[in-house]
Each structure stands twice: as structure tokens, then as C-alpha cells.
């Protein structure tokens, strides 16, 4: 199973709406500015400061953050806007500078459960930029990453279902897609005969955040 990501475990105050999220985000990130809304997309820009636990600056990174209109059920888009990180696959950045901090399906799950920008920045940006700095400095022994594109998606399914058996994953996805509802007492889609609640129910619930059309296309990855 994929590790459970709890974005709000360290937050000690409530964020009830976008205005509160914005205020908390700007308070905690003095390098960022709120630029306003363009076509219903909220935009923040400026610098993210990676600091150590003593509050000392390690490095700053020029970024733009776009909050899609589905907020808070949307995963923010982070774009790198300076030359500190090469815009290559190696650093998980597209040619346009979009940073891929998380696998799409995990991002979908977080967005589905509602996601505040304050928490997103707190959780993902220190991790991603620490990853980059270690990589740039050749300290790669502890660095992990999802494979790029389809390879990463295969790895996500393998981790989710805790198997590398392609046939089993394919069967699971086919049965998941044909099920109208995820029922606790149904037979598990993996085919081992146990009830879903005793087997892969969490995995099935995880997939609910991603559209069935996309998952349908993924079946080809295991054929």
C-alpha cells in the first residue's frame, strides 16, 4: 500500500476558507506574494525559502503557484521560474518549468479530500527542493523517485497492490472498473478469494479519486 500522507499533522490552527489559507500561506512564506485571480485561477509568485530547523536560509527558489478553480479540491501547480534548477526530466520539471512534486493519482487523492495551499507548501516544497539540492550536489544514495511517466504509474499500482504480478494488477483494475460500487463484503478484485474489506479495499478507495477513463487506459500497461 502507498504511505498515507497527512498534510495537516503539524498544523495547530484552522483554515476554513481561501482567505484564511492565503493569509496563513503569506505569513509562513515571506517570499511569496498573492497576485490575484486570473480566469478563476489564483496565482502566487515569488520565492520559496528552504530553511533549516533553526530558521537559517539554505536556498531560495523562484516559483509561481497556481491554484486551480476547484480549490480546495485541487492540487496546486508549481512552476520553477529561475535558473537554479535545470528544466529536465532528471529534476522532474517540464520544459515549461512545471514541477511534478507528486504522482498524479496520489495528488488526485489529496485533492479529493480537500487540500489547503498552506499545507501543500509545508509538506511538498521542503521535500522537493531538498531532493533537488541533494541531487545537484551528487548526494543521491537516499534519493527515491517514481519512474517517469508510465513507468511511475506501473510502480504506483505495484506499490498500491503490493505485488509486481502484472496479471493480478490487470485483473484487479478490470474488476474494479466493472464494479458499480465498492462494497466491503464483495470478493476482492485481486482474485485471492478474500473479502474486499480484508484485502484491497483501501487500494480500491484510493483509486476512486482518479477518473475511471484514465484507469481504463492504464490496463494496457499490464497487458
Amino acid at each position, binding site marked *: 500500500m502507498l*504511505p498515507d500522507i497527512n498534510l495537516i499533522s503539524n498544523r495547530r490552527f484552522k483554515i476554513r*476558507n481561501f*482567505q*484564511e489559507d492565503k*493569509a496563513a500561506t503569506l*505569513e509562513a512564506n*515571506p*517570499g511569496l*506574494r498573492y*497576485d490575484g485571480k486570473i480566469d478563476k485561477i489564483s496565482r502566487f*509568485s*515569488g*520565492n520559496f*525559502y528552504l*530553511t*533549516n*530547523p533553526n*530558521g*537559517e*536560509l*539554505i*536556498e*531560495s527558489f*523562484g516559483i509561481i503557484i497556481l491554484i486551480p478553480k476547484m480549490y480546495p479540491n485541487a492540487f496546486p501547480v508549481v512552476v520553477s521560474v*529561475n*535558473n537554479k534548477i535545470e528544466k529536465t*526530466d532528471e529534476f*522532474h520539471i*517540464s520544459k515549461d518549468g512545471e*514541477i*511534478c*512534486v*507528486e*504522482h*498524479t493519482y496520489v495528488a488526485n487523492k489529496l485533492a479529493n479530500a480537500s487540500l489547503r495551499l498552506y499545507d501543500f507548501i509545508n509538506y511538498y516544497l*521542503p*521535500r*522537493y527542493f*531538498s*531532493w533537488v*539540492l*541533494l541531487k*545537484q*550536489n551528487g*548526494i543521491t544514495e*537516499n*534519493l*527515491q*523517485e*517514481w519512474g*517517469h*511517466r508510465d513507468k*511511475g504509474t506501473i510502480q504506483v499500482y505495484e506499490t498500491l497492490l503490493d505485488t509486481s504480478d502484472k496479471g493480478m494488477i490487470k485483473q484487479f483494475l478490470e474488476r474494479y472498473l466493472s464494479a458499480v460500487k465498492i462494497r466491503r463484503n464483495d470478493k476482492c478484485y485481486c482474485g485471492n478469494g478474500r473479502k474486499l474489506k480484508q484485502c484491497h479495499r483501501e487500494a480500491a478507495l484510493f483509486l476512486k479519486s482518479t477518473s475511471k477513463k484514465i484507469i481504463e487506459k492504464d490496463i494496457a500497461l499490464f497487458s
Partner: protein
Amino acid sequence: MKEKLYKNYVDDIAHYLRQGKKDNLEKGFGYGQLNEKLASHPKMLWSDKTKNEANFRSLGALNTVTGLNAKYEEKLGAHPGFSHLKTTNGSEYHYIVSMFADVRNSTGLFKKYDPDVVANICRTIQLAAIHTCWYFDGYVHRLQGDGLMVYFGGKGTTKQKAVDNALMAASFISYFVKNDLRNLFEEQGVNRIYTRIGIDFGDDKDTLWHNAGIGECSEVTTTSLHTSLACKMQAQAESNGVVVGDNILSYKSTHKDYFVYKKYKKNGDEQPYVYEIPDEGFRYKQHDFSWEKYLKNHPQIQEDEEGNLVFIGPSIIPNIGVQQNINYLQQNVTGYKPYLK
């Protein structure tokens, strides 16, 4: 595309300039007390230590010009070379280059912006100037309204280097305000802010360092005709101009073309000297300094097609912050996996 040297400061100022007066904004954001608190105690973003350090580091390309790896250090007050004179009755003759830089025309901002926005704009410009001086080994002695008084040189620094550093710092500050901020103010229909800078060199025999004031209300400062003249010449400068004293020219003997003799204007009358003591035959001239020419002709600086300054030579200095925080960075990435769509 090469980034603008002062991008961080420019972006912040552009952001502040887009703010209107609060009365003109829509009210009732719906976060009640939080909003009120923010309104009555606005946070002065420019004073954030991390932000300052990050902005300072963003000018790291200046290290190419200085050949030094300048580090961020908040310093203001007594010049370290003369701090031993603090609260004593001692004194010491020692040369110094004095620079007065003033940011002008900020009053017009009050027509369109609340004081907190004006403060953010003016302080950001001032900080860009301070940070630039730090790169050139300048010692910011005092902040005066929107301006600053800076010493260059001191013990262990040659007079030539001190003059070079002061001219470079003045050039970059003027460049920032003239080029990078040029359009921002016009776009918002606000009178353009500009700088005026005065620089002069006071030699060892002319510059006395001593304590001034009393107790806590005291500072180590200079008594020198040339410190006073730097201030006087600053008032003579054109918009975004730099005026220097004649002493500076003796350290730039091969580059006299950068300096144009300037008559001293007093009450509308032009006089040949900025200062004179007729009995002693002492007559002192001031000169306009062509800082744009100076920057363009610098061997390590070029201009790109868009008119931005580009530095020749190694520009990336290793970030020691990474090496010092490897364990923390590794802790951060534990279990983390980025992806690529």
C-alpha cells in the same frame, strides 16, 4: 533568458505598486478579526530576515565583479575599523570614501498608496541599495529617511580599491533604480522615483574618526570636509546621477572620460567650485560621473540584447548552506518520491 539582477526587488515593488488604497478595495473578505488585525498591524515584509538574506544572495552575480564571496551580515553603526573609539575621547586620522545616496520623489506615492505600501516600496529600494553596498565592502553608517550614508574602505583596504568599490556600488544602485524600476512607476501613473548620489574621498590627513554624542546616544563618525562635501554633492546630482569630488579623479587617472566637470549651483547661480578657501588657495571641483559608461566598459560586464547586464566569469558560488545541512536535507527526503508526468 538571463534573469534581471535585481529581479527579486523589482517583483516585490511591482507587487506593491499594484495595491490600491484600502478604501478603494472591496471590503468584507469574511475573515473578520484576522483581517482587522492585518489591517492595523500590517507586516513589513521587507524586514523579514530570511527574505533579506535571500534577496541579498540573489545579487550573488556581483561577486563576479568584486572577486569576493560576500556573505550576508546585518551590520549598521560603527565602522568596525574604528569601533574602538566608541564612547572614548580618542580619535584617529584615517582616509575614507564617503557616499550619500538618497531616494527622491517618494512623497508622490502617498497620493495613491497607504503608508504601509509606501513603506514597503521605499524600504525595498533602500534595501537593494544596502545589499549592493555590502557586496562592494561598503559599510552602511546611517539611514536617513529614504537615503543612506555609506563608508567605503578602512584599515586593510587600499584607497584605490575603496574608490573603485564606491563607484561600482553607486553605479549598480543607479542602474537598478533607473533601468529596472523605470517602467513600473510609469505604468501605475506614479511619479518616477530616482536616486541622487554624492561620493568623495577624504585622505588620511583630512579625515578624523572620533566618537560623537554621549552615552547610548553616540556614534563613531568622521569629521571631514570630504564627508560633508559628499552630502553636498549628492544634492547637486541630476535624477539618477552621481556626483563625485575631484579627489576621486586622481584614482581614475586613466579613465578621466567617465567624469564631466560640473559647476556648483547655488540659489540659481553657477559657481566654479563646490567649495573654496580663497586664503589658502584651496578650490575644490565636483564632477558628474558617467556611471552607465563605467558599467558598460567594465571588463567583466556586458549588456545583452534586452539591455540587461550580463556578467562574464564564474557566477555560481557553491552554496555552503547545502553542505552544512546535508543531514536535514536527507531527513526531508525520507520516503519522498517526485514524479514526472
